[in-house]
Structures are given as structure tokens and as C-alpha cells.
């Protein structure tokens, strides 16, 4: 059971609020009254399951930014150097039988040179030099593994903890557990420029959790701020005009509530109207990058990915609990062909901004409380993909071993966890399943993953199902 309230039954304890704000007060400035109420009477929003809650125990991480390199980042070309692969380039490898999706051939050396960075000397390839520069704040997990070589189940596993059946996403669980620190913004936001990733909105689904916990999708390819969030702006009324209209609404709502003084749902909606009114400004302001100084914008860069990474920092600053950033529509990182060209282009779109994000969070003192996750749903094969008898210079899916980067939120920086075999096929040392990742991330966020549960269909469900081990090695 979750220690705090499950949004099940409404709390009826709101006599005083409505008595004080009932019929007799129609003459007062309704706005003032409600603003004051909203700060003093937290319980006015008991019907709002998004109000902030405490986790099971005190923890450093308070929010998450998940940069999802959808399609599958090649670990042997980025964070997991394999000299043996270079040595044996073009040769067929003797490895245990690992079933991947398609046919692969000989070993393919990474076209990207690796360099040592930072005090830790961790090697990072030229795909992500900017992550190299902040590597002492990054924990590189080289021993991730998942269950299946296909995108759809692996996306579901990474996001929802189960490959096939419909279950709530990590962001939904976290928002359910922690609520939102900012009532004027959605608690869980998913962004992807130009369209949805594979599996679409299921990646941020709330499933059996109340639908308010699902991610709000924002297409960051849209350039007008007002188009980013539904109904965020009124086309006909100026703010002052709308305020006057809302004053009438609230005055009449209070009169109506006067005859139902104990009915929390009514007062909750009155309160919620004020939140919505403020949200219009707050949301526009949060997504407005023009208010960032020039040097900050330059630091992140100009690509659509860079813009949404900067937006994520602004949202994190404003208390949004979980921001998930997809590289783009469908699965851009799924490079079965020409990995040098394709991975090179994709990394150039986000490397600088990811480095900037970590630097920026740190200089603002937010890195400790913000957990940054960088990675895909699985890795790629060390062997080259073959179709017909032709080499495609790309790599197939590989869920047996892959890398993931974590930064901030109490994670041990400048640290490499685990290892794959000499070629990078399979995680062999300190193997870390996706369930273990989830258990550990929840721990960093203050939750016992076995106790963050929701009763559905006769069972207490949780993100990690019956699995998950906390990997304490990666915790600072």
C-alpha cells in the first residue's frame, strides 16, 4: 500500500472553508479570497491527486529527466569501448548463441574513436564528447540487459516494467507516488519533436492508475508556445477580461456551494479553476525559451532536441516531476544501416545539449535533486548486419547487453558499473536488468519499490512486478 491517500474516496472535511466563503462573502474580492485559501488550505485540493506527497523515506532525487534515445543506441559505439572488436574487425566471432531479430555477420569495429575524460578517465567515444566533458558526474552502466530483441516489448519493459501487458509507466508511478510540485503544470510531460515514438502514447500510459497520472505529450516541433498545451490560451478574451468572467463563475459557484457546504468535490473544482487560470501563464512561461539568456541558449544549441532538453530544465526548475524526452518520431536510433553516418548525425543533434544540461543543472545546484537518465530500449550487436549477402554497415538489436548513463539524483558520478563480454554481446559482470534499474531509481527517489503499489484486479501491482534488486554500487 502506498502510505498516503489513494485517490479513492473524497475527503469531506471542508466545512470551514465553505462556511467562511459562503453566501455572506459575495461582496468581497473573490480572487483574493481564493488565492489566500489556496495557500493556506492544502486540503482544498484533496480531490486533486496531483498535489505533492512525500515518498517513503527522505531521498536526494526529487524529479527525473529521461532522455530516450529511441531505436537503440549502440553501446559499442558510445560508452562501451571494445578493442577486441577492432582487433577482430571483419572476422566471424565465436560467441554463444544469441538470437537477435535479424541476420548478422562478422565483427564490426566501431568507426568512432574512444577517448578518456575527466579525473575518472572513463572512455567515451567521439559520438558524445560533451558527455565526456561531464563524465565525472555520470555513472555509466555497461551491464544493462533486457528480455527480448524487439522494439515494442523492450520499450514497454523500459517504460512500464512489463513487455506485453498494459501497465503504468515509470513516470505515472512516480507522479502517483510524489504528486507534482507545481500545481500549475502537468506533473509528467513527454516530449518528442515531430511525432510519436514507436508504441506511441503507451510509453507514458497510466494504465490502471487514474488517467491524471499519464504523461502529457508535447510535440516540440511546434514552434508556437500556445500550440504546445491544449486549451492553454483563450483566443477571444484578454487575461483581464477572462479574470472578470472567472470572477462571475466563482461568485456563482460559491453561491451554489453554499447549499452544499460539505461537498468537497464542488470546492475542489472552485479551487481548480484558480489553478487553471494561473496555469495559463505558468505553462506559457515555462515553455518560453526566449526568456533564457543568449549564452544559455548557445550552450544547449539550436536543434529541436537541444530545445526540448532546455525546456526540460525549465520544467524541472518549475517542479515538474518527470520529463521524458524522445529523440524523435518512430525510432531514429534504430540504425540497421550505415551506423557511422546515422549515429553520427543523431549524436550531433543531442550530445552538446545533454552535456549542457548536466553542467547547467549543476551550476544551478539542481543536479543532486534531478535524476538524469540517458539511453535507449536496448543496445546493438557488435557484429554487422547482413541482408541478402550484403553488409549494411549497421548493427542489429541487442538486448543481452547495453549501456545506460545516469547522472545526478544521488548517483555515483565518474563510475563505471558492470561490463559486457570482450565483444559487447552480453552483459557478464554485475548484470543489471531493467527491473533492477527501476528498483534502484525508485530507491533514489525515496521509494521502496516493493511498496509503491496500487490495488487493481485483486492484486497490488508495482512497477517492478515480482522482480527488481537495488544496485547499491551506483548510489553515491
Amino acid at each position, binding site marked *: 500500500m502506498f502510505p498516503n491517500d489513494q485517490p479513492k474516496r473524497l475527503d*469531506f472535511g471542508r466545512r470551514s472553508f465553505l462556511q467562511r466563503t459562503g453566501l455572506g462573502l*459575495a461582496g468581497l474580492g473573490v480572487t483574493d479570497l481564493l488565492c489566500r485559501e489556496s495557500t493556506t488550505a492544502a486540503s482544498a485540493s484533496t480531490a486533486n491527486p496531483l498535489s505533492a506527497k512525500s515518498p517513503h523515506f527522505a531521498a536526494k532525487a526529487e524529479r527525473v529527466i529521461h532522455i530516450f534515445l529511441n531505436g537503440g543506441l549502440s553501446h559499442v559505439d558510445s560508452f562501451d569501448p571494445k578493442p577486441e572488436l577492432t582487433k577482430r574487425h571483419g572476422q566471424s566471432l565465436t560467441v554463444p548463441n544469441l538470437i537477435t531479430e535479424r541476420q548478422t555477420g562478422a565483427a564490426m569495429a566501431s568507426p568512432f574513436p574512444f577517448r578518456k575524460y575527466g579525473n575518472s578517465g572513463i572512455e567515451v567515444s567521439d559520438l558524445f564528447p560533451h558527455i565526456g566533458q561531464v563524465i565525472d558526474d555520470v555513472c555509466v552502466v555497461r551491464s544493462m540487459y533486457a528480455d527480448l530483441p524487439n522494439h515494442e516489448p523492450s520499450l514497454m519493459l523500459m517504460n512500464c516494467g512489463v513487455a*506485453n501487458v498494459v501497465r503504468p509507466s515509470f513516470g505515472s508511478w512516480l507522479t502517483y507516488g510524489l504528486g507534482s510540485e507545481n*500545481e500549475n503544470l502537468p506533473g509528467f510531460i513527454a516530449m518528442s519533436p515531430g511525432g510519436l515514438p514507436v508504441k506511441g502514447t503507451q510509453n507514458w500510459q497510466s494504465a490502471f492508475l487514474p488517467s491524471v497520472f499519464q504523461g502529457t505529450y508535447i510535440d516540440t516541433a511546434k514552434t508556437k508556445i500556445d500550440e504546445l498545451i*491544449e486549451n492553454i490560451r483563450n483566443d477571444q478574451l484578454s487575461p483581464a477580461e477572462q479574470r*472578470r468572467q472567472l470572477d462571475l463563475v466563482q461568485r456563482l459557484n460559491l453561491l*451554489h456551494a453554499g447549499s452544499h457546504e460539505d461537498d468537497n468535490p464542488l470546492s475542489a*473544482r472552485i479551487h481548480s479553476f484558480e489553478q*487553471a487560470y494561473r496555469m495559463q501563464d505558468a505553462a506559457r512561461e515555462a515553455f518560453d525559451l526566449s526568456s533564457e539568456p543568449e549564452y544559455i541558449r548557445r550552450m544547449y544549441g539550436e536543434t529541436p532536441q537541444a530545445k526540448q532538453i532546455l525546456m526540460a530544465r525549465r520544467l524541472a526548475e518549475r517542479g515538474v516531476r518527470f520529463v521524458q524526452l524522445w529523440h524523435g518520431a518512430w525510432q531514429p536510433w534504430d540504425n540497421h544501416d550505415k551506423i557511422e553516418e546515422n549515429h553520427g548525425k543523431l549524436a550531433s543533434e543531442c550530445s552538446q545539449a545533454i552535456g549542457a544540461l548536466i553542467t547547467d543543472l549543476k551550476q544551478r545546484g539542481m543536479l543532486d535533486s534531478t535524476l538524469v537518465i540517458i539511453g535507449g530500449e536496448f543496445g546493438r550487436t557488435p557484429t554487422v548486419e547482413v541482408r541478402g549477402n550484403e553488409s549494411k554497415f549497421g548493427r542489429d538489436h541487442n538486448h543481452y547487453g547495453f549501456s545506460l548513463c545516469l547522472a545526478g539524483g544521488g548517483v555515483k558520478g565518474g563510475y563505471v558499473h558492470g561490463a559486457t563480454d570482450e565483444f559487447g554481446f552480453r552483459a557478464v559482470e554485475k548484470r543489471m536488468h531493467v527491473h533492477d534499474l527501476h528498483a534502484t531509481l525508485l530507491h533514489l527517489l525515496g521509494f521502496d519499490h516493493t511498496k509503491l503499489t496500487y490495488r487493481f484486479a485483486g492484486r497490488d501491482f508495482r512497477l517492478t512486478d515480482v522482480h527488481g534488486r537495488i544496485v547499491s554500487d551506483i548510489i553515491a
Partner: protein
Amino acid sequence: MISSRFLLFAAVLVACGSLLANADDQSAVRPRADHFEAKIRPLLIQHCTECHGANKQESGLRLDVRSGAFDGGDRGPAIVPSDVDASLLIEAIRYETEDLQMPPDGRMEQDEIDLLTEWIAAGAFWPAETQPAAGTKDAHPVSDAVASHWAYQPIRKPALPQVKHADWVRNPIDHFVFARLEQAGLAPSPMADDHALVRRLHLDLWGLPADDDTVKAFRQDASDDSYRALVDRLLADERYAQRWARHWLDVARYADTKGYTDGGNRELPFAYTYRDYVIRAFHEDLPFDQFVMDQLATDQMDYSADQRWRMAGGGFLTVGRYFNFNPYDILDDRIDVITRGLLGLTASCARCHDHKYDPIPSADYYSLYGILNSSYLPHHSRLPLLVEPNEPSEAEAQYVAEMNERTAAFEKRFDQLHHQIEDELRKFAADYLVYIVQESVRHRLGETNPVFTERTYLRAPTAYGYGAVRRWRNYIDSRSEDDPVFGIWKRMDSFDKTEFAAAFAEQLHAWHGNTAWQQQLANSPPESMVELARRLGQLFESIDQQWKTFVSQHPDANRLPDDATEQLRQSLMGPGSPTVLTPLESVDCYQLDEHVELRNLQGKIEERTVDFPDAAARAMLLRDRDEPVEANVFLRGQPDRLGSEVDRHVPTLLLASLANDAETEAAMEHEFAIYRGSGRMELAKAIIDRRNPLTARVIVNRMWQWHFGQALVDSMDDFGSRSQPPTHPELLDYLAWWLMEHDWSLKELNRLMVTSHTFCQSNSSRTDAMQMDPANQLYWRFVPRRAEWEVIRDSLLAVSGRLDQKRNGPSIPLSPDDPDATCRTIFLRIDRQHASGFATNFDFPVPDMTVGKRPVTSVPQQQLFFLNSPFVRKQAEALAGTVVQFDGKTDNAKIDWLFQKLFAREPTDTERLAVIDYRRNVSSEPSADTPANAELSEMESWIRTAHALLQLNELIYVP
């Protein structure tokens, strides 16, 4: 050795297990049992039970049951409680000795090893087994559980309790409710006022607001039965059915798309026929038992011409998510909607293991799986027409012709692939057999075992199917050491590769196998298991060739002339051979691209319907396959791990509860035995049987929740042992009895509920009652609640006069907040992959599973919709458009008209003044921030006024 102390301890535990009343002992055992279930058993399942479980007992050891683990296998006890050093399990997982290292594919993580070690050191608490291993239904103590849990007890009519407030009693419901209230020292509330009552009734029964005239007429009608007359009128109207069908669609997880698909068609263009069926069923008050029959066994009913519309009920099973065409998940969804939706049983829990809390063994889940897997959804071209057209239009005729063409293309490729796969399995037999040997650690040579051989791409497990490799492996597993062809394989398999050469001659000698094969081996003995496999495979391949040549010369041949060769041929392609597949089994062997190809060919058929919205309506019903398919238990729910075979039967729990009253379980087994067909008919009959204690209870509880906003059993979809008992058990039973007594009429049940005093109570709060029962579990008043989003949207359209009259047909593919969408919300297309933000912000549940109760939240996004959406603005414009047409009316009169239109009442003086006050600001004080609005038009000022009123709580709360 197991200490006597331990045996004593175990005996005590067993005793505790049967003495539930012994609370102290239970509390001591519980945490350790929880620890075992949470930490220890998952580890054993993850690492051990594949080889040491119900299906396979390597070295005679089972680690899935306590007795197996403690008694141990060939080497001795695996677990000796409190004695870590004597426990072979620990020795094995520590990888300390050369010859005993488990699991074979790599050492467990250290903290896992520590957990198991500590657990054994602490006494290895393993709860007494109430359930044997998966797949053995006979030993499952279903009857005991049935005897002890309230929900499985027969439904009997309880006597009406006497109550003090007898003058307020309107029907039997009030007896039960008042009795509980009075017991708690509380009184019911008086009747609500006329205005609240009429509005409540309309929102509840129609999902639409009452109009002013209705409220006025009701006020003026002084007759005794005015309320009942109003109820009758509302129930008789189709708008009632359009509202109540939507409730059922929550149970049926209705949507118009399949959800995410990679390839193929993702639309369900005939889903609407199911929605229309549900509406008509409610409108015509189809008895609930027949309603259930229609939805489960549609294809086996014999409908008269005027009842053909009921075939569309089959959509209940087919409008769920399609899980990217993953067959296991599709069937799981169908099992779930039947068991949770109709019976309140969480049978899906038994997909991976016997149900932890309820008497539902895996065998029962897979029996349901077998029933549903023996059924299939035909292609669009083969779905029955709901109305036989007299003379199809030219477009319809062309549509049918093209669909048939596309169906033929699909079937041609389907057959081709089936034969191709059978042929591949024979002509590349050596590759398969070598692959299987290379998979075993004991006989592997070198490290590689490629799925791509030089000749073929082996049909190994993929994410989409479990392939032909499994067929070969299962076949070999099932052979004995005396098998004429595989006997030598079986004998040699138990040796290690280092011992192979030395042992071969002796084993070959002891075996009496196929003479040709044995002779060949004697002439030139293989040196490894791999070579043995290759040689047998090559022999098979040559037989395959011989047979092809022979048949081409002797088309009527049914055997090869030589006996030994014919024996080998029988092994390769005779009955039971892995290379003989049904078409359905060949699907399981598809490679990814073949799946996608077939999916796309099927999509082509369906796209023709998507492109032709005028297509005559067809029922999305399941049909029985020609041959029913028996199911195996999937161990841990994984289709590549087969457990025992299960016969198709009605779940044991149902049989046991049907037998509860008088007859024996054996009699029930006989009565509901499945003799032919899939078994959906027998399942449906068991569900609607009046002796079934669940069906009636589950539906009356749902109906109660839809009327009162809270249920008698809070977990509507789970009546199992983990559910809270009913707040009013006798009332629940009375209603269940009453429903069956009234021929399962849901409309009569609606009438009973809304004509109770309990439903008609005032919604006013009372201090005494609020303190004692703030959640109103005792029903001391009617709690006002926010309406569902469909009611909100429909109300906005209704009060503005824009609601259209659509009453059936294909779903409207407009977004619900599109200002131009004017149909009732139930007629809008629901895309389960891209649900509308409007809907989800207002708690519309993911239509992927039965949802008994939607959450009711209040989040700012809902209010943003009211403040800013073009949809709400559009309704305000329509209202204002009418208002400005009124010639000679005063502003006061116009405001009064708006209040009447929206709230079916006149404003109070205070309210009217507030609006006038606002209008003075809006019209005469030009806004400072937008000077362009300096002269606000009359129209715009009324739009803003109407818009404000549309946002009021009063509009969207059921009073």
C-alpha cells in the same frame, strides 16, 4: 536429514493453515510467508524451476514445491533447514565445487545467493502447500475455498428487516438501507426537492440535463405516481439506452481501433455494430442472461430473422486491444473480460501460476485459453451480415467482390506458407537436429550455434512465436530409450561429451532400433552427439527425397516399399511428427517477415471496409475452429515452456459453486461438459445459470454503483478473497435474487433502484451523520458527484441546442472537442492508442481492460477546457445566438432564460444581480488591455455571459 524438530514445526504450520481463526499463530507465520513469496520463491522460479519444476525434474529434483526441495533429488536434500552447509542448493549456487554449479548459465548475483543462504540459515520457512504444482487441477482444494468465501455461497432471498422509518420506505431496498442506518443510530434523509430530483433522474438515466418544462410539469403534478410516471417515461426512451450502454462499454473495454500495430490494419471498422447492439439491448431490455449468451456464444445461437441484430453481441470478445497481433495477449484479454467483467474473478492472475489468493489454478486459466483458442475471428468477408440486404447496391457488390478477392490472396499465401514450412522442416532436418544438440551445454561443440545455417534460417523462437525448434525438441523429449529411431539419441544424451565415444558401442548394442539406421551407426560410429544428430538428420533428408521421387512415380502410394525405410519415414512425417503441422501450428513457426506479410495481406481485406464506410453492417463474432485446440499450461505464462495438457472445461471454481446448493460437483462437471465445439456455449451456460452465485451479484453491484456512485462491493471487478466484503450483504443478495426473479430485467432493476427512497434522498449534509459516516457508506443521503465526461459533453451540447439525433451506425471520426462534433459522445470514434486529451483529463479510462469504477478527479486541465476550448465557446455562441434574437426582452428576462435553459430553474435575485453586474463591466467598461474590443458587440457580450454560465459547477454535478 530433516530434523525431527523441523518435522514438528512443519506439522504445526499445517495445522495453522487449516485453523484460520487462530489469529496469533497466523500473525507469526505471515511475515515469513510474505518474505518467502516476495523474495525466495521468485528467485527459485527465476533460476531453478525451468529444469527443476513441474515439467522437468533434472536429477529428480523439484524446487517448485516444498516437499521436492526438502526431500531433494538424486544427490540428496537440496535444502536442510537451518543447516547451510548441508544444503546442496547452497553448494550449487555458490559455484564452489567443480561438479555442482547451478544455474548452469552463470552464477547468480551475490545478493541473491546471500538471500537464499540467510533464508536457509533462518530455518528455510516454506509455507505449507495449499496448492500443488501448476497443471494439476484435481488436487486443488477449490471446494474448500468455495465453501468458505461469501461470494461463492448460493444466492438466497433474505427476509426484509423491520425498520423504524417505515413511513419513508418505498421499496425493499429501503428496508435494508434503513435497517443498517438505524442500527448505527442514524436516520435517513428526507426526499430531495423536486428540482434536484428531476435533474438527478435525468442525469442518471439519460446522461442529459432535464429541461425547464419537465421540472415545471413535475412540480405541478400533484398525483401520487408522478415520480414513477417520470421514471417510466425516461426508461422507455432511447436516450436511456444511449446512456446506460456506455456504462457497459466500460466493462467491455470498447474502442474502435486495435491499438498499436506494426503493419496490418489498426481499425476496427465494425466495432460500432457492438456498440449499437448494447444500446438496443438496453433499449429493448434484453434479459441479462440472454445478453451474456449473445456476447459469448453468438455463433452458436439460432436467431430468428427479427433477432439477427443480436449477433453483433459477439463484439464483446473482439473489440479489445490486439497487442500487435500477439495471440497470447489477445486471448488473455478475452479471458480477462469474461472473468472479471462477468464474474468478478481475476483469472488472469493464473496465467503465470496458480492464483495466489483465489481458487483458480493455472489449469483453469489454460482451459479457458483452450476454449478461446478454439475460436477465431473470421475475415471481414466472412463475418455475417446483420441485415440480409434485399438487393445490394452496386458499391456494396463491388466491395464484397474485392474483399473476397483479397481474402483469396491471403488464403493462398497462408496455405503456401504452411506447406513451405512443413517442407523446410524435413528437407533441413539435419540443421534442426544439430541446432538442438548445440543448445545443450553437455554436448555443445565449440561456441557457435547460429540460427542462420548455410542452407536455411532456422525457425527458432522469436518474439512473435516459438518456432519449429521447440517442436523438434518436444518431440525428442517425448521419445523413449526404446524408440526405433531416437532411442540411441536418448541413450547417449545422458552422457557427457567426453564420455560419448567410450559409451557408444555398448549403448548401440543394447538398443533394438531401426535396422537401417542401427546398421549405419554400427558401420561407422559417430564421435559426438553433434555428429549423431547430423547423421540422423541427413538420413531423414534422404528419406524425404526418396519419398518425393517415389510419390511422383506412384501418386497413389501410401508407404515406401522397404519396411525399415518406411519406419524412418513414419518418424519423419507420420502422425505426431514435428514436421506435420496444422495450419495454426505453422503460424507459430513464422519468421518475423512472414508474420508481417500475412498481417499486411489481412490488413488489405480490412482496409477495404475502412475505405467504404457505407458497407452493410457485420457482426464481429468469434466462430469455432473446425477442430478444437487443446491447450497446455504455459509455465510462468511463457508459451515456450509447456506444462501439462489441459482439457477444455468450465472453471472448477464455477462448477464447485454451482454445486454448492444441492448437487455434486461431479454432476456439474457432467452437466457442463464440453463434448463438441470450442466450449464457449457451455461456459456461457454456466455463467448464466441461476445457481451461479457470481453473475447476478456482480451485475447488480455494478448497476448499484452506476446509480449511486459507490458500490456495495467496492472492488467491482474482483469478488475474490482479497475483496472487501459487501457493505450491505443482505441487500446485495436480495437484489441478485430479485433480478433473477424478474427474468434478469436490467430495466426493472433500474426502476427498483431509482424509485427507492434511498436514491431519492436529499443531498444535504448533516453534522451528526457526517461525523459518523463521512463517506456515506450507509447511504444516509445522496452524495452529489461530478458527472462523467460523456455526460458533461452531451450536456453542453444539449443545453445549447446543438445536440444532433444520431442514433446508430459507424462511429464519427471527430475529436470530441471538435466544435463541429455534435453527436452524443457514445457515437464518437474511440482510438485506444490516441485517446483524446479531453476524455482522459476527465478520467476516461484506458479502454484496454474492464473498468468497474472510474476515478473522479478535479485537475486544472479540466478547467482549462471550460475556460478556453473552442468547443465550450461554440456552445456559448449558440446560446447567445438565440438570446440576441429575443425582441423586446429585458436583460433580466434573457438571463432568466439562460438559467432555465442550463439549470432548469430561474436565477435567485443574488445570482441575477451578479450576472447583471458582470454584464455592466463587460459591455460598458471597455477593456483596457484590448482596445479593439472597446465596443463589444451585443452578441459578444452574451457569448461571454453564456460562457461563464456554462462553466458553473451546477451544470456538471449530479445533484
